[in-house]
């Protein structure tokens, strides 16, 4: 199995704060890797650096061996990295279907003149996009059926909005999918459902790097787990290894509790 993503000593600071500190890890093909860590430990910042929203101060980010550090977000997306956001960022007035269609922007190519004239090839492309978008939405059975595809994204429930963000990210069939807390705010039943869907995505061949707080989900889906604290990677391994790592317990529960459990 080849390496999809490789971070080599990536650092990113805001003013004096080192949000990510010489972070190195890799994600191999068809793997689900979870990043855990207390709030403010630099997980989202890591995603922002990978997806091109921030340029790392130092270090390199390789996608299938090719550096993507310092590229613009749309360029990173073109290379094959799609993401969701911890704080939902849908195109809320646009329809459910259109949200997914926007996700296909970079893998379609109707140009200005062709679109204005609505040439046959543009019509074909649009029709194919819609078929594809419906297929993706049907990965979430019953959630985006029929009339709901035409409704504005804001009218969806919180859980469905999270699902729609995943659908939008999947629309370009990315080589790597970044999910930032995909089950945040969901009830246990909904979380379990999303967990199953993430496994289905792996079965379909997707490679996933996920930030998650819900330990049931992390345990349920992760091939490997990376723990971060204060921007530093403090542990890496299987769920059991990481969950029992003294440094991880300390980061979550504080030093005294860690000693007590030891």
């Amino acid at each position, binding site marked *: 199995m080849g390496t999809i993503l490789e971070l080599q000593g990536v650092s990113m600071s805001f003013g004096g704060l080192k949000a990510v500190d010489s972070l190195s890890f890799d994600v191999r093909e068809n793997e689900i890797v979870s990043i855990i860590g207390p709030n403010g430990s630099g997980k989202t910042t890591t995603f922002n650096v990978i997806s091109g*929203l921030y340029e790392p101060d130092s270090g390199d980010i390789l996608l299938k061996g090719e550096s993507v550090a310092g590229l613009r977000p749309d360029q990173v997306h*073109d290379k094959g990295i799609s993401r969701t956001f911890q704080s939902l960022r849908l195109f809320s*007035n*646009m329809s459910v279907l259109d949200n997914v269609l*926007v996700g296909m922007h*970079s893998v379609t190519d*109707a140009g200005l003149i062709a*679109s204005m004239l609505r040439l046959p090839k543009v019509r074909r492309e649009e029709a194919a996009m819609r078929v594809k978008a419906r297929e993706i939405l049907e990965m979430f059975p019953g959630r985006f059926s029929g009339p709901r595809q035409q409704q504005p994204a804001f009218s969806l429930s919180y859980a469905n909005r999270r699902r729609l963000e995943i659908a939008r990210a999947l629309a370009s069939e990315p080589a790597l999918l970044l999910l930032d807390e995909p089950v945040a705010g969901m009830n246990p039943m909904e979380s379990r459902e999303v967990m199953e869907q993430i496994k289905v995505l792996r079965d379909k061949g997707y490679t996933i790097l996920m930030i998650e707080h819900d330990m049931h989900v992390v345990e349920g889906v992760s091939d490997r787990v990376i723990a971060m604290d204060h921007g530093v990677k403090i542990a890496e391994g299987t769920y059991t290894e990481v969950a029992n790592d003294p440094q991880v317990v300390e980061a979550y529960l504080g030093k005294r509790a860690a000693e007590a459990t030891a």
Partner: protein
Amino acid sequence: MRLSEVTERVSGAAARVPRSVYAVGGLVIAIIFPLLNMAGWVETAWLRVGVISLLFVMLSLGLNIVMGETGLLNLGYIAFFAFGAYTTALLSSPKFELRWPFLVVVVLSALIAMVAGFVIGLPTLRLRGDYLAIVTLAFGEIVRLTITNLQDFTNGPNGITGIYSPRLVGEGALESLGSTGPAAWLVIDKPVEYYYLVLACVAVTAVLISNLKNSRIGRAWNALREDELAAVSAGITASRAKLLSVVLSAGIAGFAGSLFAYYSNVISPESFLFMQSVIVVCMVVLGGMGSIPGVILGAIVLQALPQVIRQAAGAARSEFEVYRMLIFGIIIVVMVIFRPEGLLPDTLWRREAHEVDPREQEKTRQSLFDLEEGEKDLEV
């Protein structure tokens, strides 16, 4: 019944009529209109009002691309109209003794305006809101002042006179076919001819833009307007998409400017005042940002309605001029308060204006019945 309820009912009824009915109906009325003049029922002055209204329809369609689709304010839009008009005036008037073929001139006028759009668009890509408003306003004024002061090229405040009428087929083209000179019908110089020429241009522009709105490019513009960070993360190149919308809208204004120069025979800087930019913005806002039928209606209402009122006012005409801008202001204020989405709103902007749309809510309730148990999670 409150005013907002009335407008809600009217628009509810209006929304049930398919958009294609409006398009065909509007086009039929526009085509029939000059026939009334030919029949002697309508004065030729009204035909002139029609031509100018159509030119403003085209300007509104163009400005709507940046304002309504991409969400970028432009308070200097009339400058692109000026670029088109002056390009035409220079290439088809006694000023430099040029009379280039109509099609070449129109295309060049649009291209020059597009270059101007690129030049102003590129450095302002990152700006939004107030800053963009100030920069575009300044751009419009700089263009107008430059035109006023470039005496050698533009004759300054006196303007360029004697712009030749468009010839759809250039001189000589017919000789080669064995004819002795350009046939009269190939020269456009009567109001009714201009009217149909501009109408055809407007209709084609509206169709092309409407196709674009419902394309991958239109969706990219909307996505950028809704959430730029999410849009770029979803693979949209913001600078490219925005620049495309700015340049395209400039091109449409340049095209309209070219037709305007041909039609009016004479152009001068006073046709390109800041107030004209504001008026086009008002047309887009009144009709409904992002809505093609809306901005067409907005342009016609704000351009033709004052003329109708002026006519009706009769003796009080000169006084009416004084109140014209005041009436504009009142209309816009009333609109923004009671119907911010415009007369014939676009779906996205209607949702934007009302966090929860009453009609959407109704549809949602309906669709809930179609969905299975445990699925009633729509937050409305």
